């Protein structure tokens, strides 16, 4: 194990990479009590556990980390250790800055060659999942090691290689997270999980990109798979769910139509009424009248 630490500002190796805040590989030989206080994470942090067993907490979530595990901590999350110190062991890390990550978009920075829609998908996956990249994402640890070795050795075209490897690292982690979120071989299971999320959040304005990202797929493939599995485009499937739920709510006379429309994800009672009538021939209030014992 090659122990080192590079810091932006003081390490010459990072001059060409202003987005990399720090990276390194270190061994912790002794316990320093109270050395690990809660920190609000400022940068994009990726850790790879090399040796030892760690217990960390990210926001409310307890992580038990073993050699081979990769942890990703997004800016804004709170990192702490329930014990208050860093356990004995060894780990590698990289902290880097990104331009933007929120529900609308993910912009890693000019160094990245990922395109806009790829970034969107990766961003959604990162935000929707836990911090731990599961199942010993060896891929990620190999890429991090390669990246660090490029930085230290500065071989031919290392400037490009380092940035490429950082992209690779993001992709590997996103894929690994998405794989855990869905058992990839079985689209029926993947779709069932998505369906549950849609049902639980019907009021939300889902975009197709967002639905695709939820199951870790690109939009084009997602469209094809959903159409071939359900017979519907994702948008039409969602409309079916909305109308079916609305029918249930319409049977409850105490609810008003605007609330039903908003609860089932229509942007207005007008929009609800047109869509409902187009499919059933009834306006929502006609349907309600017919189905609440009035006839």
């Amino acid at each position, binding site marked *: 194990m090659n122990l080192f630490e590079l810091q932006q500002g003081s390490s010459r190796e990072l001059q060409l990479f202003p987005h990399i805040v720090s990276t390194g590989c270190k061994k912790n030989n002794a316990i320093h009590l109270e050395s690990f206080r809660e920190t609000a994470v400022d940068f994009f942090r990726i850790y790879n556990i090399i040796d030892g067993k760690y217990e960390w907490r990210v926001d409310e979530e307890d992580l038990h980390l073993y050699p081979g595990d990769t942890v990703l901590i997004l800016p804004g999350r709170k990192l702490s250790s329930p014990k208050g110190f860093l356990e004995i062991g060894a780990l590698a890390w990289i902290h880097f800055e990104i331009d933007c990550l929120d529900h609308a978009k993910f912009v890693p920075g000019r160094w990245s060659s990922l395109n806009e829609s790829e970034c969107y998908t990766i961003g959604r996956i990162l935000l929707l999942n836990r911090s731990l990249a599961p199942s010993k994402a060896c891929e990620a640890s190999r890429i991090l090691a390669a990246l660090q070795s490029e930085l230290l050795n500065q071989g031919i075209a290392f400037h490009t290689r380092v940035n490429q490897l950082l992209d690779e690292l993001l992709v590997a982690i996103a894929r690994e997270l998405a794989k855990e979120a869905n058992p*990839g*071989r*079985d*689209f029926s299971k993947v779709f*069932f999980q998505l*369906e549950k999320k849609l049902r639980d959040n019907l009021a939300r304005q889902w975009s197709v990109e967002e639905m695709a990202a939820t199951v870790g797929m690109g939009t084009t493939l997602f469209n094809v*798979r959903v159409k071939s*599995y*359900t*017979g*519907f485009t994702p948008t*039409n499937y969602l409309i*079916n*769910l909305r*109308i*079916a*739920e609305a*029918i*249930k709510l319409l*049977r409850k006379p105490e609810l008003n139509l605007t609330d039903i429309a908003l609860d089932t994800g229509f942007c207005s009672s007008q929009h609800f009424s047109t869509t409902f*009538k*187009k*499919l*059933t*021939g*009834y306006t929502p209030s*006609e349907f309600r009248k017919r*189905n*609440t*014992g009035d006839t």
Partner: protein
Amino acid sequence: MDCIISIELGTNAVRVYAFDLQGQIIGSARGTYPTFHPYPDYSEQDPEQIFITMLYVLKNLLNEKIHSKKYRVTAMCFSASMHSLLAVDKNGAPLGNLITWADNRGQKEASALRGSPLAEEIYKATGTPIHPMSPLVKIAWLKDQQPGVFARTDKFMSLKSYIIQQLTGRIVLDHSLSSATGLMDIHKREWDPTALGYAGIRADQLPETVPINYSPGKLLNQYRVSLGVPSAMKILVGSSDGCFATLGAGVWDQHKATITIEDSAAVRVIGKDVLSDGKRRLFNYVLDDTHYVSGGPSNSGGVVFEWFAKQFGDFRNAFDLETCMEDLIKEAAMADPGAERLLFLPYLLGERAPIWNAQARGVFFGVNINHERKHFARAVIEGILYEMYSIERMLLEHRNIKEISVNGSFASIPFCTQLIADIFNLPVRVSANASSVSMGAYLLAATDIGVYKNIEEASRSVSLAETYRPNVRNSKVYAGYFSVFENLTGKLADDFEALANL
């Protein structure tokens, strides 16, 4: 030009087909809906989602393939999965989800009833084996476990009744589906007082039971306008998926049987007599005023092979599950018949006919150090088909079956069809139609509007394509394996139970 629409409310999806009056498919569409398992034995669906999905699919098909080509819809005929139950209150609102045929929550009620003297009487009167699938048992479960819902239930419906009520306002159920509820006297074709008594309900809490060619009236005006169909269009209640698949498979003769293997599976025959089975293993469902569809259902169909593919298939090159299964079938074909002494009992979901044992489990038997994946793949396919053959053997006690027709996505894979010919040692023909169920619905509607003289002539008009002939040498091999298969299944009954009780 006139056309007929069939609407198939299946286990996972609604399929809508449009036929011209020569029986050619002029368009089809499908839309899926999910099954929920809130607890392991539960299997439920959302009736409103099914209704909306059906409307959507129907409307799109009409717009894209029918109205645009100036077809006129003459009749619309319904098919549905058997054994579903939906409790509905006095305002017509569902009290919870639809309980499907695959739901096993009533195991305790079913075994209590099976052990009681009522069992024989109810089975003989209703033709439905006593099993958690049966709405009779499901209602008994509701009475025991959810007395509040039971008391608030105004009508115990089937999915089809609910859908037809939405469309027409009438609450009806055809004789075929009624006869699969465990509540109808199949001889008199009316609700059976003994079964009603056991379930604790009155006949007026069930839909009106009507012949399969009954018309419940016109579409409600709003749906007629929204779908753009003529007001003269006739609605036929239709039959069950099982009965229609048999009708559409063209097996009208005494010496023919049909095998359907989709996710689940069945072997069926048509006849004028109820087949009485002392061990209460066969079903007898009503087709029309003079005919019954009899046979045995199995849980162990294509779903078992799909499980194998998901667990052990090679997904490195396969784009999806279908490709992976195709690859495995190619591999299986490389192994010899009998898979070098490897046998598989396919009871991953328990089993219905012939053993009716919910506790049964899957078994690989005879594993040897030389066995490879191809042997396992072959053994799984052979095991599924031995199970079909064991149902056929029950039917052989009543019928002299000389010819088989197969339909359904798994049975019509050429490799599987040839295996069926070899294992059954009978010539096998494949239905030319993509869906025998919808073909059956078309035949009923076409008979109703006068294309055929009667339903028998309609069924005989079905053309069956290629014939697979048994390979005599392989048949002998399989006969030997089948007897071990049958022995094993019998011997393991106690151990299945012991395992379940651990």
